[in-house]
C-alpha cells in the first residue's frame, strides 16, 4: 500500500534518514520504533508531505506521492496525527472533526458534516465533549480528538505519531482497543510511531526499528524486540546477550 525506496533526508550536515526502504501492507498495523532523534517523525513528515526527501521515492497504491503538497497527500487518503497534539483550539470538538469531513469527504453541507462527525465522535467515545472548545480538553481526550479528526477525512492509511505517550495504563489499553476497532470496523491501515514498548508489542503485526536514520530491524514484534541491533540501539553493546 505505502512503499518507500531508498529515502534520504539531510538537514544541513545531519543525515536524518539514510537510504531507508520500508513498506506498509494493506490492512496491517505496522509500528515504527527507535531511540530519540532516530528519524521517526522525520519519516512521517516526509510521507505526509511536510518535508521533501533529498533522494528516494514514496508511493501510495502505486501512485508516486514524493513531491506532492500535504493537502494533496491527504486527499489521496493518508491522514496523520501530531506527536504534540494540535487541536484547533477555538473551535468546538465537533467542528474540529467537521472541518476534515467537509474538505476530506467533499461534503458541502455543514449540517450533514456535523452529523457525520457526531457518528465519529461516538465511535471514539468523545461524544459527550462535542460542544467543548478543543483547547479545554485534557490530554487523553486531545489525543482521542487527534485520531477522530484524522478519521474525518475518511483515510485509507492512518499515521499515528506517539498516541500513547503521556497516557496512563488504563488509557493506553483503551487506545489500543480503539486502534484495533479502527482497523476492524473501518478497514483502515495503520502505521504508528511508539515508545511504549508493551503497547506496541501488543498492537502491531510488524515492527520496523530505526537508529540514526538507518533501518536496523524489520519483522514480527518478538523478533524485533530481541534483535541484537535493536537492543544495542536502546541500551548499548554491553547488554546484547547471545
Amino acid at each position, binding site marked *: 500500500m505505502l512503499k518507500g525506496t531508498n529515502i534520504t533526508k539531510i538537514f544541513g550536515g545531519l543525515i536524518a534518514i539514510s537510504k531507508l526502504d520500508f513498506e506498509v501492507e494493506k490492512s496491517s498495523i505496522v509500528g515504527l520504533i527507535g531511540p530519540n532523534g532516530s528519524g521517526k517523525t522525520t519519516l512521517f513528515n516526509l510521507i*505526509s*508531505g*511536510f518535508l521533501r526527501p533529498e533522494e528516494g521515492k514514496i508511493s501510495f497504491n502505486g501512485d508516486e506521492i514524493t513531491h506532492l*503538497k*500535504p*493537502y494533496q497527500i*491527504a*486527499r489521496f487518503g493518508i*491522514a*496523520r496525527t*501530531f506527536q504534540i497534539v*494540535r487541536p*484547533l*483550539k*477555538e*473551535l468546538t470538538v465537533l*467542528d474540529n472533526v*467537521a*472541518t*476534515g469531513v*467537509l*474538505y*476530506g469527504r467533499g*461534503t*458541502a*453541507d*455543514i449540517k450533514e*458534516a456535523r452529523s457525520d462527525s457526531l457518528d465519529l465522535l461516538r465511535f471514539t467515545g468523545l461524544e459527550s465533549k462535542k460542544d467543548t472548545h478543543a483547547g479545554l480538553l485534557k490530554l487523553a481526550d486531545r489525543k482521542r480528538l487527534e485520531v477522530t*479528526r*484524522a478519521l*474525518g*477525512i475518511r483515510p485509507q492509511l492512518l499515521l499515528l505519531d506517539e498516541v500513547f505517550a503521556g497516557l496512563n495504563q488504563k488509557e493506553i489499553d483503551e487506545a489500543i482497543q480503539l486502534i484495533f476497532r479502527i482497523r476492524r470496523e473501518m478497514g483502515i491501515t495503520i502505521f504508528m510511531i511508539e515508545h511504549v514498548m508493551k503497547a506496541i508489542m501488543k498492537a502491531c503485526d510488524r515492527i520496523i526499528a530505526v537508529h540514526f536514520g538507518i533501518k536496523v530491524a524489520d519483522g514480527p514484534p518478538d523478533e524485533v524486540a530481541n534483535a541484537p541491533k535493536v537492543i544495542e540501539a536502546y541500551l548499548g553493546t554491553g547488554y546484547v546477550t547471545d
Partner: protein
Amino acid sequence: MQKIIKSIVPVSFIFLLAFLPILQPPAYFLSFIFKVFLYIILAESWNLIGGFTGYLSFGHVAFFGIGVYTSAMLFQHFGLSPFIGAIPSGLLSSAAAWIIGYPCLKLRGPYFAVVTLCFVFIIDLVVKNWTFLGGSEGIHLKLLPMDIQLSRSIFYETFLGLAVASVLVARWVQHTKFGLGLASIREDEEVAQTLCIHTADLKIKAFILSAFIPGVAGGIYAYYISYIHPDIVFDINISILIVLMALFGGGGSWAGPLVGAVFLSIVNEFLSIFIRPEFARIIYGAMFIAVIIFMPDGIVTFFKKWMGIRKIQHSYTSPVDKEK
C-alpha cells in the same frame, strides 16, 4: 417560527433606519450615521481575512482607495454613473488583492501585517506622483445633477444597503464550509493542510472577497466626498481604525466588527463633542488598552462568556447553602 420572531427586531430596526431621511434630520446627524455605515462595511469585510482567517491586514484602506479612484476616473472620462462605476471599482480592488495576496499570504503574523502596511504607502506614493490620477492635487468631481438633500439621502440608503449586505456576507461565510476552512487556517495552518484543505487557495479567495466590498463602497464614496485626495482615501489611520474596531468587538464572529464599529463611532463622537477633543483621545486610547488587556477576544465574546457564567452560577447551589 422562532427564526421569524428572532429576525423581527433587526429587520424592523433596519426599516427604521431606512425611513430616517424622510424625517429630514439635521444634515450632521445623517452624515454621522453614514460614516458609521462606512465603518461597518470596512470592519466587516476586513474581518473575513483578519478575523476569520487570522491574517492581520493593515492594507484594507488601499482597497477602499482603489475603489474611490476607479469610479472617479470612470466618471470623469466616461461619465459613468457612480452606482454602475462601483462594480468595476470592486473588481479592480479584488484584482489588486489577488496580485498582492499571492506572494504576501505566504507570510504570517507580523510579517504579513508589515507588508500590507507598506502596500498602502506604495499605492499612496504612486497615486501622488501620477498626474493622470490627479497627482498630489487630487481630483474635483462634478456634482451630481440633483438636489443636495436628495443626493445625501440616496448615498445614505445605498450605504445602509451595503452595510446590511456586508454583515450578511460575513454571517453567511461564518456558517458555511468556507468559514470553517478559514477558521482552521487561523487556528493551525499545517493541521488544516492535513485535513485536505488547499490553504493557499482558500486564503486568496477570502482576501479577494474581503477586498471587493470596500472597493464597491469606495466607488460610491467618491461621489459623496466629490473631492478626492490620496491623503484622504489612503489614510493609514483608517486602516488602523478598522483593525481596532473589528478586534474591539471580537474578530471571531460576524457580530464583533458590527458592535465594534457602531460602539466606537458613537463613543468617539460623544467624547469629541462633550469633552475636549484632546481628552477624548486619551480616554479613547485608555479604553482600547483596557479592552485588549481584559477582553482579548473582544467585547462580544467577553459578554457571551459572562452571561454563560452567570447562567451557571444561577443553577448552582453550593453545598454550604444546601445545609442551611
